[in-house]
């Protein structure tokens, strides 16, 4: 089960730090949702956040592209650096940030538009293409990256909402990679998918690792073990343990981590 992770482990140390979070606190009104989380996320690596429901892993993920800004009562302290720049700096425009840090959501949420328009939307609003041919190229490349091109190339004008669940989620991944992000955040991307679609998306995540820093939140420990090289275990808003996936699953240092992965808590 842990084959993939251990096989890839050697490459992890060679990569550098993409995201550095220091003493991050998140409050929802009076609720202290994230406590003192510090973590270094490496480039060209899949990092998995695991933990029981309500432990704050999705909340923390949403801090990384400032999606929490849309929630009025959310307040964030501490600093999160991407490529050494504080993303909560006043000068940072969250819109630019989100072009650099793409996101895939729990439920496939394609726009109720054509497949082409779904993928082309990001490049269009960011002005990535000069001509229609450019845009066609970008869309094709993104769909190929998301391993969806062969399935949809004949029906690019069909609505994206008409695809199957797994295809929709890969369409969302294509939409996210079309804007050429450097980091890809995935919030339980397979929780609404069947095992076959899950397998396809996991394969895809492994390929995306070559170009992006991928951060994935997952409820499935098997999934974390299959796709990630590094794993962070969250519990009650704190980061309990963060290490290579292999180590977390075979030799956890903290007793809470051990309890969780062996199924005693959570």
């Amino acid at each position, binding site marked *: 089960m842990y084959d993939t992770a251990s096989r890839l482990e050697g490459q992890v140390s060679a990569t550098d730090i993409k995201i550095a979070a220091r003493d991050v606190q998140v409050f929802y009104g009076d609720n202290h949702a994230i406590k003192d989380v510090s973590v270094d996320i490496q480039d060209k690596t899949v990092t998995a956040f695991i933990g029981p429901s309500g432990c704050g892993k999705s909340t923390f993920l949403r801090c990384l592209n400032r999606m929490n800004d849309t929630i009025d009562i959310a307040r964030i302290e501490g600093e999160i650096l991407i490529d050494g720049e504080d993303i909560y700096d006043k000068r940072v425009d969250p819109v630019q940030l*989100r072009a650099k840090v793409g996101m895939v959501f729990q439920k496939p949420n394609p726009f109720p538009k054509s497949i082409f328009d779904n993928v082309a939307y990001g490049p269009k609003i*960011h002005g990535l293409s000069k001509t229609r041919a450019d845009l066609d190229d970008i869309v094709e490349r993104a769909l190929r990256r998301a391993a969806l091109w062969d399935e949809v190339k004949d029906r690019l004008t069909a609505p994206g909402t008409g695809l199957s669940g797994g295809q929709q989620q890969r369409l969302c991944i294509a939409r996210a990679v079309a804007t050429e992000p450097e980091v890809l955040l995935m919030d339980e991307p397979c929780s609404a998918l069947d095992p076959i679609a899950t397998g396809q998306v996991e394969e895809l995540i492994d390929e995306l690792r070559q170009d992006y820093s991928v951060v994935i939140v997952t409820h499935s420990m098997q999934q974390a073990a299959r796709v990630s090289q590094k794993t962070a275990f969250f519990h009650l808003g704190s980061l309990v343990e963060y290490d290579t996936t292999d180590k977390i699953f075979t030799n956890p240092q903290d007793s809470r981590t051990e309890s969780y992965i062996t199924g005693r808590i959570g």
Partner: protein
Amino acid sequence: MTDLSAGAASGQTPRSLTQTDARTKKRNAAEKRFRAYGMAAIAAGMFFLVVLLGSIVTNGVTAFQQTFLQVPVYLDPEKLDKTGNRDPEEMKKVSTFGYKPLVEDAVFAAVQAAGIETAFEDAGDMDALFSASAAAQLRDRVLANPDLVGETVTFKILASSRVDGYLKDRVTRDSVARDKNIDAAHLDLVDGMRDASLVTKSFNWDFITGSDASESRPEQAGMGVAMLGSFYMMLVVLGLALPIGVAASIYLEEFAPKNRFTDLIEVNISNLAAVPSIVFGILGLAVFIQFVELPQSAPIVGGLVLTLMTLPTIIIATRASLQSVPPSIRDAALGVGASKMQSVFHHVLPLAMPGILTGTIIGLAQALGETAPLLLIGMVGYIATNYPDNIASGFFDPNSAMPAQIYEWAKRADPAYYERAWGGIIILLVFLFAMNAIAIILRRRFERRW
């Protein structure tokens, strides 16, 4: 309770599923009763609807039929154009008084030519048969085409409201007994003329396109001008209420922080939707007419007042449809780096469009049928000029509106106006049905699944 469950658990006798126990019977009976209540309620509703529509149609449909006298009229050059050079400017000097004897003579001659027995021996007795507006109609026709003078033209003369009522069974010999405008002998004459096809009923276009008429000429009154007034008002409402309402809802729903102040605004908008319309009328009177000094009876003022009334409806409908757009769509747009505004205008608004349009049209339909505020701001202008002359042509000219016109007619003493009021209601309802149909079509067309 413990006994019961212990007994059931021990299961002395296994319960049969084919026999319904008392409790189940009671529940089933209650359910059946409830369904019966529901069906009774719907049946009652349908019954009232049928009665309502039935009475409107039976009372109003006659307004769309009008009685005309079809007689050849000799346009005597001696009387209409003494100089003989057919100059319209000179011919205008002959007023309707000059034309009236021509009509009387023509009707009398036609009666005699048809050999109808009558006690009347004077052409002057004929004027109870045709409308007071007949002379004006004839004059308009002659002035429009001066070459007709000297010829005998078959002319459709508007019958008087009494004759019209007689053919529609509204006026009877009993009812004319004390009527000084017409007497039973005239009705006998009408019977004869009907047999000779001199009196016919035909579709009344003038009722749809014409203008209001004086109290004594109900046969001439029409809805056209009031329709125009309503049309101008609806333009104002659409032009103001839709953008303001949609902008306000988008801001409140998507951008505004959720705090006490926005809560207060929200509550007040809901309350405004329930404010009686006459309050908006008096507000419009105080603000738009007395303070801003806009002209009275003008569609612009009516439109502004109705805009105030319609805004809460549009805002509530728009907010509801914005709320019904799944938040995942907003997340998706923000996630690929769209700005808040882009996410709203590219994704949320198109999905909310069917709801917004439906709400707007329902609001407009409400405004179209609103009467009380119009009475307060004087949108009951008496416009009796037919187009194209000097008709209430714009937003600032005095005008009337459909519901106000209906109200005016219903107030008038002549029973002929009662029929017009019902007819007006039919026209108003046709507009409302059409608007609701458009709302349904738009909703179907724009509806998309996600």
